[in-house]
């Protein structure tokens, strides 16, 4: 009896029609595609993209060359050299990140005692040759200066959860 019912069902194409109903319904649903250059997916304030070095409002760079980020970096992507500046403070002479090694884990940002090294929302950046993978102190500070407002707003938004 059951096999007979299966037989009738298969001849009436019941399951095929059910499948057609599903795709037919999806034909009239909104498509989820974003038109990339014009539309961009929203990002979380915690997004971990390209790095930046921040400054204090008075223009002094935050980094004190404590090398915690260099120590914590699991991919050994950060290289720091330091010296004593004329005013007696310790500062970096070299702060380099190898973007090919970096895994964008955000540990450097978490370890930083002065909130100097951060990861910004910049997620598409290009290099024209392989040697451009290493970004130095000047470039990092430049990025930090350019996006300071965004970076500060993101930290403030995430502060209650830290």
């Amino acid at each position, binding site marked *: 009896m059951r096999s007979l019912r299966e037989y009738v069902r298969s001849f009436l194409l019941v399951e095929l029609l059910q499948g057609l109903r599903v*795709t037919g319904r*999806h034909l009239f649903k909104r498509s989820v595609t974003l038109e990339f250059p014009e539309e961009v997916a929203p990002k979380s304030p915690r997004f971990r993209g390209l790095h930046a070095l921040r400054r204090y409002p008075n223009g002094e760079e935050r980094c004190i060359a404590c090398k915690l980020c260099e120590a914590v970096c699991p991919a050994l992507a950060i290289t720091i050299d330091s010296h004593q500046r004329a005013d007696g403070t310790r500062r970096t002479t070299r702060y380099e990140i190898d973007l090919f090694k970096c895994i964008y884990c955000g540990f450097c940002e978490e370890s930083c005692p002065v909130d100097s090294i951060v990861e910004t929302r910049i997620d598409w950046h290009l290099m024209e040759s392989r040697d451009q993978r290493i970004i130095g102190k000047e470039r990092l500070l430049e990025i930090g200066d350019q996006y300071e407002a965004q970076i500060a707003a993101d930290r403030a938004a995430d502060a209650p959860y830290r």
Partner: protein
Amino acid sequence: MFETLFWTFSKIWAVLIPLFIGVAYFTYFERRVIGHMQDRRGPNRVGYKGLLQPFADALKLLFKEITVPTHANRVLFLLAPALSIGPAVAVWAVIPFADGWVVADINAGLLYILAMTSLGVYGIIVAGWASNSKYALLGTLRASAQVVSYEIAMGFALVGVLMAAGTMNLSGIVEAQAGPFWNWFWLPLLPLFLVYWISGVAETNRAPFDVAEGESEIVAGFHVEYSGMAFAVFFLAEYANMILICVIAAIMFLGGWYSPFHGLPVLGPALDWVPGIVWLLLKACFFAFCYLWFRATFPRYRYDQIMRLGWKVLIPVTVVWLVVLTVLIYAGVGPWF
């Protein structure tokens, strides 16, 4: 003499140019419709809503090099696309688009269609053989076996139409269905209609019967080695055949150029101003949409399942229904016989 020649040529072009434009936009609508069924958008960059996409594709293929594999049989390799497109285009000669709108009004139109659609498989066989590639050869074997077995089911389904209409002339078949939509042959021949449509999809090697192309198993089947315009010609032939199957389904089972309310008291005369070709194309568009709908819905059949369905399900169903049909005709049932 020259006058008839001139008029025949004009008629041929009047059929072919819209056909090729139809093929171009069929590919566009395929990508759009399947895209939306999968919650995507499909091509929408070239021209307004991507409407110029088919021309961009054609232009791209036109400028590409036609490569011939080293150990391929050069003559057969280049002949195959022509063998494929020739029959696909030739069939259109007997298709009546409206009352009297037909290039060649021959009495054995149905036989001519069956003959031409069978010839199309030679293009595939020659292409697969001449490519000297194992994928192409496997695709060819599958395609030819599939087309040959489904042709029987399709032929039987059309025999039912032939019995019901009593003529092989396509215009005659349409005229035998004159009347509102319940007068058309889809109702008394419902099982044959389904069998025809399923074997039509299988005959054109489309999803879910696309093992001949099977891009996930044998790359692209018989046309792996083809590029540029040679590939485009295969593509053109495949889509022309698909549109043909749609149009024949409309002619054989859905009353061709008749409006669904033909002969009814109020609606019939109210819709008389619509030219017949519009109704035919509307019906064909429905089937064309079904092609895309099936492709977006059904997973590919396994090869042995295709053979089982063709030989052990569809052919017995048609044979049984032909017997039933004979009884119906002798009893003179309904408005049809």
